């Protein structure tokens, strides 16, 4: 089987063995540590062979994550990790492809790529480390910042409605959507593990406090708001997930847990189908193609 599941249960490594030689550079108390812990744990539980894993990211505090993980990895440009990862995944459908990045990276400059990752069902896992702020550039509003937040270039308070990443991704047709809080690395781990196992585009939004620049969306704030997804949510129906998220949002709360999972052909499977259809293979006689242009 030419997909990434062949690399599951190939290694026995403890979570901490997935740490790379580079030490995280995040501020003390940063939620991103929790996400990273969740990743280590998920990879460990899956027995994911790091040699067949590619971690990609854009630019931001969160986008430093790949440096800290044992695997192949690429630190790309602000907003472009998803698009770069698309190339990697289609080129090598046997790899486990993971993107980590921030709310700004993903939904501001990278927002144009998101719909297409989901609707094309690129077989990758996208982990959004949502601190509702631009961390690395020292605290400007991001598209998930609450309107009341005063920040670097909004000294008189914000002026825009925030967006909801999971609602977006559900609308975009992501086939796996979960949400968690970085303060609960166990839930992070379980959702990331599920995402990695999922065949298709999986998205996990993780609320991750930035104590340095976001003084309103603190760990305590998040902790007080999260409510678990009820057991009876119809997981394979994205409209149920959307309705649920909207309802929880209206109560001023945050829904955490697995929100949606469904199956649809992935783009690499479609491509494989095409190759099969035309009888493609590495030994194909190229002269036949040349000859088509004879007068």
């Amino acid at each position, binding site marked *: 089987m030419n997909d990434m599941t062949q690399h599951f249960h190939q290694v026995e490594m403890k979570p901490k063995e997935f740490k790379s030689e580079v030490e995280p550079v995040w501020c003390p108390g940063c939620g991103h540590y929790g996400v990273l812990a969740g990743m280590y744990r998920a990879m460990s539980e899956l027995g994911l062979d790091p040699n067949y894993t590619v971690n990609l990211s854009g630019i931001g505090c969160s986008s430093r994550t790949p440096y800290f993980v044992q695997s*192949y990895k*690429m630190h790309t440009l602000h907003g*472009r990790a998803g698009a770069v990862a*698309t190339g990697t995944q*289609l*080129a090598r459908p046997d790899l486990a492809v993971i993107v980590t990045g921030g709310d700004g990276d993903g939904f501001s400059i990278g927002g144009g790529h998101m719909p297409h990752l989901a609707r094309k069902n690129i077989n990758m896992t996208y982990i959004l480390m949502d601190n509702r702020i631009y961390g690395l550039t020292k605290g400007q509003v991001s598209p998930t910042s609450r309107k009341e937040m005063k920040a670097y270039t909004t000294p008189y308070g914000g002026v825009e409605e925030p967006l909801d990443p999971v609602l977006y991704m559900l609308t975009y047709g992501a086939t796996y959507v979960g949400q968690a809080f970085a303060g609960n690395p166990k839930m992070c781990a379980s959702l990331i593990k599920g995402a990695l196992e999922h065949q298709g585009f999986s998205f996990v939004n993780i609320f991750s406090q930035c104590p340095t620049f976001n003084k309103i969306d603190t760990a305590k704030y998040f902790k007080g708001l999260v409510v678990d997804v009820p057991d009876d949510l119809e997981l394979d129906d994205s409209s149920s997930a959307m309705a649920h998220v909207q309802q929880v949002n209206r109560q001023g709360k945050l829904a955490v847990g697995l929100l949606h999972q469904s199956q649809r052909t992935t783009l690499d499977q479609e491509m494989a189908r095409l190759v099969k259809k035309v009888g*493609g293979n590495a030994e194909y006689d*190229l002269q036949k193609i040349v000859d088509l242009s004879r*007068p």
Partner: protein
Amino acid sequence: MEKSDLVIRVAGEGGEGIISTGDFISAACARAGLEIYTFKTFPAEIKGGYAMYQVRISANHIHNQGDTFDVFCAFNGEAYELNRHLLTPGTAFVYDGPGGDFEPDLPDGVSAYPIPMSATAKKLGEKRAKNMVALGALSHLFNINEETLIRVLSDKFGKKGEKVLAKNLEAFELGKGFAQALEKKDSWRVADAKEPKDVIIISGNEAVGLGAILGRLDFFSAYPITPATEVAKYVSEHIPKLGGTLIQAEDEIASISQVVGASYAGKRSMTATSGPGLALMSEMIGMSFMSETPALIVDVQRGGPSTGLPTKHEQSDLFLAIHGAHGDAPRIVLSVENVKDCVEMTAEALNLAEKYQTPVILLSDGSLAFSTQTIPTPKADQFEIIQRKRWDGDGEYRRYALTEDLISPMADPGTPGAMHIATGLEHGETGAPRYTPENHETMHRKRIHKIQPLVDEYRPAERDGVEGQATVGIIAWGSTIGVVREAIERLTAAGQKVKALYPKLLWPMPVAQYEAFAAECDQILVPEVNFQGQLSHFLRAETSLKPIPYTICGGLPFTPAMIVAKVEEISK
């Protein structure tokens, strides 16, 4: 010029079969062992509007679309009006009449042949047969090989059934009949059929696609843009046969990003675009450079700047191709002369990207994009496939190891023991961030100097013209080269001491070759289709040459006559 080097222009309303008329003539002549070189302009609007197809036919080798046409076939009054000023004594003029939408008032010396195209098509009850009537007439009047033409038509219409074929052949015969009834007043004729050659007939854009396939492309990311889209069209049809992938991305930034991602995964990867797309790719091209990830970008240049003249020819993206990224990020820039180059240099450019682990920009242009030409049939195995340097598994793996040739071994994901990070941040040998002054200098030198050997490894720029000292030396790039070749032929035939240099590697610059060439020329003329004289700029900056720029930018290519005139002007 001998009369058997003939240029036929057919023009009319888009949708009247102008393009297919030209394609039939081209195919028939190619089957008859002749060479062809075509040139087309499409209506700027989607449907209707003026369409023009010009085909040059010769028993000898052809380098360009010619100065002007010898035979003009007008399907309607608009086409006539737009071309009337180009009719000179000696032009043969075939037109729709009687019964067409205009009555020509011809300049003296033009030989006119009225052929009732519309009326005949109407009579046949098949408006679309108009061009067949024209074709029959043209075939008879100008010695277009009837046998091969009928075979081409049969191949084409045969697929659509007996009846369609019969109807078209009937129209053809009627056209021929009208022509037979007319007196031949000019001496233009296509050369007689020769031994058929082993050729294909293909457009510049398709040829880029073919080059990519023969260069064993694995991954192509497309975003449509005029005049580059047909590259993707061609690749999309054939790449699955090799087991490869073509994806249409959401925009050009995504395209180049996907290319970089696929290349990181170990695959030969490319995209094709035009100026606006290349501009959007600037940042990610810098990332390809910095992370040393191979990437091929084909830029089929069009009239700029901005949306500009999207369907017209220009060679004006050289500044962007060489300088388009922040920081110091020089890359390999190549440009093609003709359709044959489109095949060969695309395959070659893929190799160079892999070999030097850097972005490569291959420049084509609007006049080649749709120009179909006969070229010797490429042999699938004539293309050497150079693989990127890969890690041999020895010792500790460092992605950006400082090696003697400055090129570090890569490792595909899945290579045990070689996990690493590729990054756009400044980094040390392992890929970990490193911001010290010394490291930045060292790594900069590595990335920038590693492509320098290409200047000597690459085949030297071709030279043309007289041996020894010349009064004028012409340096041309891109499709302008083909025009200069013919100008040089004419000038040397006229006893002028001229020579030319045809660089195809534009960056890094083969400075020594330029210097050696210039040493043998009293003056250097650099014709190019842009406003600022972009190659002249680089010659002034990087060599001791004092070029005389000769620039035009009206959306059309040069003609040999223009070059001849210019040389005569400056050598007075």
